[in-house]
């Protein structure tokens, strides 16, 4: 089942523009390794679910996966073969808006080699370029 919010204030939203880099959620906070996006984009709820399945199947209970994004923006679509006009389309799916630098997923309790291989599988499913990053040193 794709992810979506339980309650919303409005059924439909305008798209807006994705500008700048991530200023929050841009460092590894819970795990040891993070998957960081290098591009801005929209990540659909079912893509996040596919990534979760790919990662958990690969680590098989060895490590813990943290999902740092949630699809809270509704995207509308028009039915096929309908004419233009008559207002905005109906909500079709939900997306998470990500900016460059955002940490999408984190892994805890695994080695670097395993995290690298696991996130390589996850990266295939994502519509943005990503890279593996370690936890930053504490000060």
């Amino acid at each position, binding site marked *: 089942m794709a992810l*979506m919010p339980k309650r919303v204030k409005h*059924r439909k939203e305008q798209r807006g523009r994705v500008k700048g880099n991530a200023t929050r959620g841009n460092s590894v906070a819970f795990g040891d390794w993070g998957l960081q996006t290098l591009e801005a984009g929209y990540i659909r709820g079912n893509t996040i679910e596919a990534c979760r399945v790919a990662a958990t199947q690969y680590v098989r209970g*060895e490590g813990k996966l943290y999902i740092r994004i949630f699809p809270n923006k509704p995207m509308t679509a028009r039915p096929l073969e309908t004419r233009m006009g008559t207002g905005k389309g109906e909500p079709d799916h939900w997306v998470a808006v990500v900016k460059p630098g955002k940490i999408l997923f984190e892994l*805890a309790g695994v080695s670097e080699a395993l995290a690298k291989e696991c996130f390589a599988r996850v990266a295939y499913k994502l519509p943005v370029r990503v890279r593996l990053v370690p936890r*930053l040193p*504490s000060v």
Partner: protein
Amino acid sequence: MAKEADLKLATRTALGTRACRRLRRNGQVPGNVYGHDAEPVAVSTNSAEFRSLVLSGVRVFNIDVEGRTDKALLKELNWDAFGDEVDHFDMMRVDPNERVTVHVPIELKGIAPGAMGGAGMLEQPIHELTIDCLAYQIPTSIPVRINTLEIGQAIHVKELELPEGIHVHAQPDAVVVHVVQVRNTPEPEAGALAGAQPEVIGKKTEEAAK
């Protein structure tokens, strides 16, 4: 004990956002040095050298600001959006024999037997501890041995083996690391809630309208 390194700092007279951006473009990183009843000084240093020192775990620096030498503790680091470059740093002058408050990472040693075989999973809720100790006593990390940790067992803050004179600023009962049972949550049926939409806040239902 924490690693120490020598660092040459240059004072900077041009202050503000634009001057700092110019410095960063030229391979420098801006910072501030303060403390010990002396005037705060705006400084800069080589970005690549400073970054490599920080990543190697150095927290106490023997700084040289235009001929004046001091011992300084790294108090704050600002990274860029990607965590690649240091944007700014704050250092506090310290006396080696004065007590300071620092964050020290926790380092897990060994392999937990409970986390092997797929039945248990190692979780570490706390990755760093806030401690106070003498400036020359700052440990690089706090080692935690997890060789005997079975499923359902935990290591708390009060059970940590700390060097003499170090005081931890955390609840003694806080869990540092534990092994939990892997939960096999059933996968939701595909399409069970397909087409479901979230509740709209404030929208009147048909019954309420009547």
